[in-house]
């Protein structure tokens, strides 16, 4: 992993959450190699920041759900290494942001510090290549469901599934997660991929990154609890690997399992997921006709 990041805050001036992104960006750049990009200037003048933005992993800090900084990065053709959204973090940590003032109180500053610290810590987490490689075998066989000209595949051995259309492949205390063939086909051409942060501890059903196609944004719901030890960085430049091969090259993240024995009761085997898949295919079809 690189020790230098380009930091792109939204700097939304008319909202408290936007005011906070500048603060977070400052905290991230103070005393580090990281460099800040001014979103306003970048919007009008590519040349000033293009080199910094293209040569370093990009960290995007958005204030609210409008995600102006993410959109700006998209417009400039940059791939986002990591992004954080202030309102989401505030909600996660139970902090209510003020709506009547734009000035930051101690409470907001504390949230900014916590968010910046978490990233700096994560940055020093175990690098990918230090993690002992585990072999995840390709599925030997698939169960198949056909509907009109569509063919949906579900691996028969070694995989678990969630009702949120994510899969889990377990080897020892490690697991890979990804999205199922059915979901991949429902989304159609996947153009963007946001990985979960490496080093973060996810609880079962937490968000483990997301993918976006021309049709929709799909949030990966992590089927189990675990620590993210690796992400499939190839998907950053070629998210279409998920469409091509959702169970092998299209894997999303690798986890170190923390509570698998208890949690596997809530996962589905191939036959049970197949039942759900068939139902979803029929419903999708009905929806499509109505829509």
């Amino acid at each position, binding site marked *: 992993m690189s020790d230098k990041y380009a930091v792109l805050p939204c700097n939304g001036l008319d909202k408290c959450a936007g005011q906070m992104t500048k603060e977070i960006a400052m905290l991230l750049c103070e005393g580090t190699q990281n460099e800040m990009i001014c979103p306003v200037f970048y919007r009008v003048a590519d040349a000033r920041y293009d080199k910094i933005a293209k040569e370093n992993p990009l960290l995007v800090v958005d204030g609210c759900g409008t995600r102006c900084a993410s959109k700006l990065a998209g417009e400039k053709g940059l791939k986002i290494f990591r992004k954080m959204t202030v309102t989401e973090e505030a909600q996660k940590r139970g902090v209510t942001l003020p709506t009547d003032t734009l000035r930051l109180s101690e409470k907001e500053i504390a949230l900014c510090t916590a968010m910046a610290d978490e990233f700096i810590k994560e940055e020093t987490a175990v690098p990918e290549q230090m993690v002992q490689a585990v072999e995840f075998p390709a599925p030997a066989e698939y169960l198949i469901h056909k509907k009109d000209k569509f063919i949906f595949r579900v691996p028969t051995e070694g995989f678990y599934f969630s009702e949120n259309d994510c899969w889990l492949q377990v080897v020892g205390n490690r697991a890979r997660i990804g999205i199922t063939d059915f979901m991949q086909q429902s989304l159609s*051409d996947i153009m963007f991929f946001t990985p979960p942060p490496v080093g973060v501890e996810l609880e079962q059903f937490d968000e483990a990154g997301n993918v976006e196609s*021309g049709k929709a944004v799909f949030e990966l719901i992590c089927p189990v609890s675990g620590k993210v030890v690796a992400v499939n960085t190839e998907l950053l430049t070629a998210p279409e690997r998920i*469409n091509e091969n959702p169970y092998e090259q299209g894997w999303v993240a690798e986890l170190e399992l923390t509570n698998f024995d208890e949690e596997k009761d809530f996962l589905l085997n191939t036959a049970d997921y197949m039942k759900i898949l068939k139902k979803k295919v029929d419903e999708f079809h009905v929806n499509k006709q109505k829509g």
Partner: protein
Amino acid sequence: MSTNKKVNVIACSGMGKVYGLMAREAVLHTVQRLCPEQAKTLCLAYIVTGDEEALAGFDNQPCITVDGCPAMCSAKSVAAMGGDIKEELKVLDVMKLHKGAKPGTATELTPEGWAITEEIAAKIAERVQEIQKEER
């Protein structure tokens, strides 16, 4: 005045998605408006039949394929039929620069869709010029 034959620009024209229509419109825009003297299009459906006459359309000239989706129908079909592909363009690569854009449907493009289509056409035209120079 160039004595070179025209570069072949071949769209997938996919029927299922808006990206197929964008590929088709971008190619039409290139060969009809941007560089009618240097480029021509060939019908992919005709190439797929494998007819000798259809393949003669390649004219031993370089090809640019324009594909809507990663299935890469145009690139794969042209390659399978022996076309000399110099550039494989993808609509999705340009779409990635316009996150959240709503280009329209497989039958009709929105103004946003047309703007992106023209951007793709400009890219094709640029490659057409370069290829003609290289071939000289």
